[in-house]
């Protein structure tokens, strides 16, 4: 049983909430590295869902998760209070990000994917990379971690779909523009992107056109997250890979995006049903 030490609603807009939880888990706090994730179960009857470890505090023995209340499980998780307990928490899982000095790195985060680029950004900064960070949200109220990322980035750009803050448009628009106007060919060594599938797909296309290496962290559906079930499989370079043990990071250009997009919608009907049923 894992205790919730601290809970904050860090963004809210029209029924959508982004929640931050700090969980007691000294061992995971000690071991986890940027890019890795945990799997948790809210209750004994719950499903197992993966969430990225956004931050950790070894002294307090805690880890921080940030998630958007999307379906039944994330909403149940969001309804817990400080002092409540989770039924299960396992981690750290997945491979960690390769952190080294690349030079100039463009970090692209969309929606709650911003949470996932944060630990990577901090680690890359420590290695003296020049960070160009591009954040995208549906609307101003749903933008998270802007302040935190500003502190570690040399440049920071914000886009919103509705134009309520930053630039109106998508992160890919800014990336495209930076690459054509502000930076010479090959000036950016790496693009690291996390967000909704269409966004990552867009980033992948841009990177491909320019011949820049792009790494994405995939959010495939998972069950055990130890390689046992094959639920998280993706087609990478025409071959089947398991996101949980081979990933979650892959080179963007080798992903079959269409397939991934479809697979993550496999249980949409069921989720709508359970959400209606419990009316949450």
């Amino acid at each position, binding site marked *: 049983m894992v205790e919730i030490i601290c809970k904050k609603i860090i963004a809210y807009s029209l029924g959508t909430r982004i929640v931050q939880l700090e969980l007691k888990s000294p*061992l*995971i706090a000690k*071991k986890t590295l940027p890019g890795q994730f945990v799997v948790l*179960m809210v209750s004994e*009857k*719950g*499903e*197992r869902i993966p969430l990225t470890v956004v931050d950790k505090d070894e002294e307090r023995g805690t880890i921080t998760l940030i998630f958007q209340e999307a379906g*039944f*499980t994330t909403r*149940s998780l969001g309804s817990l209070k400080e002092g409540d307990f989770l*039924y*299960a*928490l*396992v*981690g*750290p*899982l997945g491979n960690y990000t390769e952190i080294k000095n690349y030079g100039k790195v463009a970090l692209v985060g969309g929606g709650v994917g911003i949470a996932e680029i944060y630990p990577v950004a901090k680690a890359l900064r420590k290695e003296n990379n020049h960070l160009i960070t591009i954040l995208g949200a549906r609307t101003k109220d749903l933008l998270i971690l802007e302040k935190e990322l500003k502190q570690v980035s040399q440049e920071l750009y914000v886009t919103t779909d509705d134009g309520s803050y930053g630039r109106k448009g998508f992160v890919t628009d800014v990336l495209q523009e930076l690459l054509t106007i502000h930076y010479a060919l090959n000036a950016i060594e790496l693009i690291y992107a996390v967000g909704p599938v269409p966004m990552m797909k867009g980033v992948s296309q841009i990177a491909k056109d320019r011949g820049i290496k792009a790494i994405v962290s995939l959010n495939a559906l998972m*069950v*055990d997250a*130890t*390689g*046992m*079930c*094959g*639920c998280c*499989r*993706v*087609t990478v370079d025409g071959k*089947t890979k*398991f996101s949980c*043990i081979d990933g979650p990071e892959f080179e963007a250009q080798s992903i*079959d995006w*269409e*397939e991934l*997009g*479809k*697979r993550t*919608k*496999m*249980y949409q009907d*069921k*989720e709508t*049903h*359970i959400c209606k*049923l*419990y009316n949450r």
Partner: protein
Amino acid sequence: MRKEPVKVKEINIEERTKSFKEVVLGYTEEEAILEAKRCLQCKNPTCILGCPVGIDIKKFINQIAQKDYEGAYCTIREKNNFPSICGRVCPAEYQCRKACVLTKRGSIFASFEAINIHFLERFVGDWGMININSKSEALNPKVKGIKNLNLKFRDKRVAVVGSGPAGLCCAGELARRGIAVDIYESLHKPGGVLRYGIPNFRLPQEILDSEINYLRELGVEIMTNFVIGKLKTVDELFKEGYSAIFLGLGAGIPTFLGIKGENLCNIYSANEFLTRVNLMFAYKFPDYHTPLNIGERIIVIGGGNTAMDAARSALRLQVMNRIKPDVTILYRRTESEMPARRLEIAHAQEEGVKFKFLVQPQEFVSDKQGFLKGLVCLECKLGEPDDSGRPKSIPVPGSDFLLETDLVIVAVGLRANQLLTRVTPELKVDKYGDIIVNPETMETSLKNVFAGGDIVGGEGTVIEAMGMAKKASASIINLLFP
């Protein structure tokens, strides 16, 4: 002496598919005695050689015939920690029963006449579960080899990684001798395949729970949600003061077919399908929150126990959801080459699972949303025997045909779980990723690290996993108390 074997009672076929209740009810006392009395008590009992752990089958059967159930229980427990489990899942027709002299010569598996050793073992195991607890057993002089429960060994600690049959067995063997054992398990519940793979209608979880509770009574600690290799390394375990480590990691990675479209929606590995059902209780959705799609025309690919379990589970899910049952198993050879337990094949057939032999999947076909809609197959014919000794299945060019289906479960085998071995490079593995051990001692290339079960032998059986674990536990005891 009675010639006809005593048939084991089962719940009737209509009832079966409506739930996940156990199908085989097991022998009553009278039936067990009748069956036990059929045993010829051979002078040179060959059945014992057929059992991977060498249970004194002749003796325990005789003890049943004499109504000495406690004696029978002790006889079995000398060699096998989990008789209630093996009595339910052992492929006895390839092991002890095949070696029984009543089996007709030359058959590939035990014939009907062979003594139903596994059902007798189950009877005794279940009897013991009710009548004997860990303390009375540990102190019971009839149980050889375990009477030296000795607290002076308490300063020796052993870590067991994985809580499948191999891990549980090794932990039990050590704990019964008073050694402190901690089991580390990555899932949230212990049991390995016994928990997430084998369905309740074959092995009720209460039986597994009861065996695991028994280990806890012996003082075994089970740390769930704990991945060794990630949260702690093998080195770190030694630094914490463990004297030896046993690795029972299992063969946890499902193989796929490597054909076009295999990642479409509604194509499951048997492991995923069964895990959702057994470990996560997806069949109780939405009360339990893990979803599972069911499908109207289900195809299961494979011919082993995993395929049977997946097919029978899928059929039950259809019935429980008022969908007309329609499950077909595709296998590339014929029925006699199927590696599954014969009883499971028979049960699947009785319950309405259809079989299509001599076919090979070629390509999955999708609808616009990325959901599966059909499977193109090739017909096959049997050729010369291959390495496995079974005739090779040879696809016939140009024989392709389309099967309509909206859900496929792939059950074509498992590979070694590499979560730990990948991050422990000093631990030698073979080209399949299986851990290399000294077969006499089960010691790995790492000092004081032992291994057993599917991570060593590749996909095997529960009793084989336990056999290796016993060997390893004996080596660990030798190591700790030279």
